[in-house]
């Protein structure tokens, strides 16, 4: 391949973000290490450093987990502290892995990693099958609305590469998944991360398996429709006013399209004011563009001079976001220092808007292993997930999370410590 071809191919790549979920000892770090190593995305000096550390720690084999565990405390204690992001690329795609560790902050970490993922790899140990944690992982993937799931049945070498064992696990998983709303695209792959079977190349040990190997699937799964291109939503992030002679009257609204498609000439409505106008132009540094859609960052100018500021939302007259000060949401509690307080007040951040919110009602918590509602213990502490009602100090302009991940999500911030204490998905 000539240099030009490499360049051209690279410029044509798209981006897949995925998260990995597994219980302790499911071989998650080994799998990630294998993906990075076998796709030739690790460097010699990294591998040498890992070999050196493995030896120093007295590990029997090269410990691929050390590729992902970067902090002193992690290396000393052999644990992963929080979400680590890893990058690799093949000629087809660039990948961002959100590696979410287990231990005490498990749910919090997986929710964080899942919030930006297109795909989740759920690992199960072929000897153990679908266990409580597997259901928990599936529930979180569903809650965060990850469209594509890979059920990676690992350690196939320890069950003699048996089709029967694999089929049984897949059936069990699908039975559980049928109770969840959004888990529709499930691909099950039998692998051995340790030996590399079906990870980046097809294994010859499982001739009964006719599906793709893991990397091929990651490279080819269709993710084009993951953004909402139906409901036009443009949260205003920053107002551009150059105050220069050349652009004396220029007033541009900068932001990142959160949904739908915008074109010059479109009739639009500005919320919360309700003013109607038209899009005059959609600008970029390179000049005007013909259309803008998620996830592009652009600058919009309007036909009329209207008072618009950060936190306002541009939509279309026939397709507008909900506007309300009362919202119902599923939340995951993130703080290990405080608990959710009924009548408690928090800062709420939603798109580019920040308001105050008060907790009006705690409806239920979810036992995420069984999916049962808990209604007799409503105290939310670290990792708890459930449904609450909030009242806000000013209207939110939102869609349901199911319809749009960007306009349907928010975080709660503690007013005293400024910490992010909860992630919310509007029902």
């Amino acid at each position: 391949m000539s240099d030009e071809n490499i360049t051209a191919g690279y410029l044509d790549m798209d981006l897949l973000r995925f998260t990995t979920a597994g219980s302790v000892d499911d071989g998650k770090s080994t799998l990630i290490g294998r993906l990075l190593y076998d796709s030739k995305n690790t460097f010699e000096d990294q591998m040498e450093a890992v070999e050196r550390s493995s030896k120093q720690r007295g590990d029997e084999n090269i410990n691929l987990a050390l590729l992902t565990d970067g902090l002193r405390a992690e290396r000393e204690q052999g644990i992963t502290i929080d979400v680590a992001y890893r990058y690799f690329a093949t000629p087809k795609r660039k990948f961002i892995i959100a590696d979410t560790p287990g231990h005490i902050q498990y749910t919090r970490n997986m929710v964080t990693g899942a919030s930006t993922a297109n795909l989740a790899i759920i690992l199960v140990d072929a000897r153990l099958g679908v266990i409580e944690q597997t259901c928990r992982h599936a529930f979180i993937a569903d809650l965060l609305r990850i469209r594509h799931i890979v059920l990676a049945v690992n350690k196939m070498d320890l069950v003699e590469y048996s089709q029967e064992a694999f089929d049984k696990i897949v059936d069990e998983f699908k039975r559980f998944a049928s109770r969840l709303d959004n888990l529709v695209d499930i691909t099950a792959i039998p692998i051995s991360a340790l030996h590399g079977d079906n990870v980046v190349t097809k294994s010859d040990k499982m001739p009964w398996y006719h599906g793709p190997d893991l990397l091929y699937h990651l490279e080819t799964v269709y993710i084009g429709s993951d953004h909402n291109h139906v409901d036009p939503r443009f949260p205003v992030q920053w107002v551009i006013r150059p105050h220069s002679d050349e652009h004396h009257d220029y007033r541009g609204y900068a932001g990142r399209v959160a949904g739908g498609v915008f074109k010059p000439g479109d009739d639009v409505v500005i919320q919360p004011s309700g003013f109607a106008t038209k899009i005059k132009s959609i600008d970029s540094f390179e000049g005007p563009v013909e259309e803008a859609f998620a996830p592009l960052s652009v600058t919009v100018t309007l036909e009329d001079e209207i008072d618009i500021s950060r936190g306002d939302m541009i939509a279309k007259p026939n397709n507008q976001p909900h506007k309300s000060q009362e919202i119902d949401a599923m939340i995951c509690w993130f703080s290990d220092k405080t608990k959710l307080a009924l009548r408690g007040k928090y800062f709420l951040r939603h798109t580019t808007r920040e308001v105050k919110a008060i907790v009006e009602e705690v409806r239920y918590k979810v036992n995420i292993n069984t999916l049962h509602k808990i209604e007799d213990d409503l105290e939310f502490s670290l990792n708890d997930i459930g449904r609450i009602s909030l009242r806000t100090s000013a209207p939110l302009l939102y869609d349901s999370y199911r319809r749009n991940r960007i306009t349907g999500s928010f975080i709660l911030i503690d007013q005293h410590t400024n910490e992010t204490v909860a992630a919310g998905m509007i029902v």
Partner: protein
Amino acid sequence: MDSQIHSYQVNHLKQLESEAIFILRETAAQFDKPALLFSGGKDSIVMAHLARKAFHPARLPFPLLHIDTGHNFPETLTYRDEFVADLKARLIVALVQDSIDRGTAREEKGPNPSRNAIQTVTLLEAIESNQFDACLGGGRRDEEKARAKERFFSHRDDFGQWDPKNQRPELWNIFNGRKHHGEHFRVFPLSNWTEMDVWQYIKAEKIPLPNLYFTHERVVFKRAGAWLAVSEFVTLGEDEEPLKKTVRFRTIGDMTCTGAVESEASTLDEIIQEVATARQTERGTRADDKRSETAMEDRKKEGYF
């Protein structure tokens, strides 16, 4: 054009660009007095280029801040001044020498004196005296293992320290820049970029770079496995022999700690080809990272870039 209009596919560079522009605008919106840390290296050049795009046709709503160790490659300073003039940006230079003269920083002793560590002092002093509440940095998570743990919006306490075990979770594209008086943030718009992405973007956007990144002849010597440039800032040991080599730099830092690689790459395509086949990370040439296994983490906790 017609065939593209309804596919809504966006390639990965466009996605990374869009994300970085979002972060830059978010920084301008959430903070009172941000600054963009500019070193004259390729990552900060790309970041400044993205900032220009983010606020076009207005000028950058924040100044550039250069922490000047005095150990720069002369080419870096020439490039910096031209770049800043072209951008019509405001440049603030904070000199490590001033911190040394004030007695707040002390020059390292020994055979391999580096101002790498003490520039943290100058950086924190510049943040305090200018009352900056957010500093945009070009750090990337793929660079180094401690950096892999960084947030886009990374909180610093009122001593400028990073607490990696107690970071704010970041979900969707919602970023929490709330802080108490005296605290500040470091913001990393290029978090999700790799070295390859940066080079591809430089090519796609035709961004001019300092010529240090391209092949040239230079007198170098070997120290701790790296080719360092012979300059007024280093003293050669008895067994260190100056040699003329054909080299280029993969990263640019101080002359005292930035190693060159032997390379004939004279165009961006050749560099991209080299990056694609490289078997060493780019920071493999940085002596400052090799002082210990957690050298970067330790410096970052103190307030380093």
